[in-house]
């Protein structure tokens, strides 16, 4: 069951990620990205991270993508035209995908092999929201507070950049 769900989510997310890159219309790209995010939320559920799956749906697929769609519709853009004389870009992209994939496989394989020796004995419990909250408000309390300052700075920055005319 888990395997089936994983394969469905994985294939759908990869297909829609490719579609996001290839679609000319930015609104279509944004909608494809929402599907990718929802598939990733299901993957998080499969990995036993319910809290992050909920946050993924609410914050990413909800808030951030609505912000993107708002800006796209505010700017009223035409479809992207291919700038001529840039055939090299496809080559660069292809080689970057290839080399990046090889590099990432090697890196994640190496890291995973190095880490699997130190596999912890504690089990991730089924309901993990409480566990995440406990860790967040004890061990990671200072980063949590710094995050709130970061969000404040982001709000002020966004207002300063986009708020006034000119």
């Amino acid at each position, binding site marked *: 069951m888990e395997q089936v769900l994983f394969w469905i989510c994985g294939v759908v997310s*990869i297909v829609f990620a490719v579609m*996001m890159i290839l679609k000319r219309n930015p609104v279509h790209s*944004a909608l494809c990205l929402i599907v990718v995010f929802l598939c990733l939320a299901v993957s998080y559920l499969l*990995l036993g991270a319910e809290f992050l799956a909920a946050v*993924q749906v609410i914050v990413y697929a909800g808030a951030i993508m609505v*912000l993107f769609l708002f800006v796209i519709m505010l700017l009223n853009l035409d479809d992207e035209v291919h700038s001529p004389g*840039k055939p090299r870009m496809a080559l660069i992209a292809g080689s970057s995908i290839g080399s990046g994939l090889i590099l990432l496989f090697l890196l994640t394989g190496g890291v995973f092999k190095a880490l699997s020796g130190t596999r912890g004995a504690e089990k991730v419990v089924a309901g993990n929201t409480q566990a995440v909250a406990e860790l967040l408000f004890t061990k990671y309390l200072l980063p949590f507070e710094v995050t709130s300052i970061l969000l404040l700075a982001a709000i002020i*920055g*966004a207002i300063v950049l*986009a708020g006034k005319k000119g």
Partner: protein
Amino acid sequence: MVDTTQYLVLGAILFCLGVAGVFIRRNAIVIFMCIELMLNAVNLTFIAISRSLGSIDGQVFVFFIMTVAAAEAAVGLAIILSLYRRRQTINVDEVNLLKW
């Protein structure tokens, strides 16, 4: 039980698709969405390794990454908005004042 390696491979593929999108696309907003995709691929890797280690710290890090991504999206979209107001374009090929 899905093997952790499969999740890592999925994360790697999604990350590389994001990188390819940044190279291929010229629309600043779509480039931004590709960056979000890369962040999500990293999140998936974090959660997969967190499960395989039996530790929950990785999930807290994903929480922080999501917060930073939200802040980044807000500021970045504000920059794109003000860029569009000044130059009437968000094609990154035409915004090359700082390009060497």
